[in-house]
């Protein structure tokens, strides 16, 4: 944050470049979380490991939250730079779709009472929805879009902006990892409490 607020204004974006330091990490972590859910779902379907279901389910609310943050901060950047909060182009639309996939995934978990069946259905949905991740990533290359192309890996981001951006990305990732672990632990405690209640006839 300190590096971001001491960075000079960008020659094109001016001070709105500050929004990039929270928008890019939110969007990147939102997509990464979906990758985590997809891997956990695959593990669940192939090896039927119960912890992978718990881990996937625990990650989803955070994925949805980071997606919402990516959308809000992106549109707050878009208004002064593009002249509009929203445009139905490939990147923005596929990213909005990611939010709907997250919401659908969480709704499916809650809609089916039998946990084993819910886990299986949610895992299949997660794997189908994973198709959207490369679509989001490559949308700026495949279609004509207002959204700028990839600039971190290609090395076209100036170091004065790259350092705060990478540190913020690391911070967002660590925050997610910490909250995810606590959420998994919570789910395990809740399961143990349910088992105790069932064993006690309550």
């Amino acid at each position, binding site marked *: 944050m*300190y590096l971001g*607020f*001491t960075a000079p204004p960008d020659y094109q974006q*001016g*001070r*709105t470049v*500050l*929004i990039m330091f*929270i*928008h890019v990490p*939110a969007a990147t972590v939102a997509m990464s979380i979906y990758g985590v859910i997809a891997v956990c779902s695959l593990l669940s379907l192939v090896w039927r490991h119960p912890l992978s279901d718990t881990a996937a389910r625990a990650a989803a*609310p*955070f994925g949805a*939250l980071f997606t*919402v*943050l990516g959308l*809000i*901060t992106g549109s*707050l*950047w878009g*208004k*002064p730079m593009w002249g509009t909060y929203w445009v139905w182009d490939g990147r923005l639309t596929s990213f909005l779709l990611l939010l709907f996939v997250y919401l659908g995934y969480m709704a499916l978990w809650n809609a089916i009472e039998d946990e084993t069946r819910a886990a299986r259905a949610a895992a299949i949905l997660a794997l189908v929805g994973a198709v959207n991740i490369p679509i989001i990533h490559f949308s700026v290359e495949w279609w004509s879009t207002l959204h700028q192309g990839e600039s971190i890996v290609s090395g076209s981001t100036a170091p004065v902006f790259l350092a705060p951006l990478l540190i913020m990305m690391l911070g967002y990732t660590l*925050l997610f990892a910490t*909250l995810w672990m*606590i*959420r998994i*632990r*919570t789910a395990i*405690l*809740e399961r*143990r*409490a349910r088992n*105790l*209640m069932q064993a*006690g006839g309550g």
Partner: protein
Amino acid sequence: MNFGMGVYGIYIWPAYGVSALALIGATVWTVAAWRRAKARLNALERK
């Protein structure tokens, strides 16, 4: 640190405000849920 945002302040500050609120809210919600689950399990185990 330069907090002068000029005309862009109406976009930058809400972006940071929403992000801070959401991330702090998520942290509080997650820790509170963990504490509740822990307390409930402890109570059940004591019975």
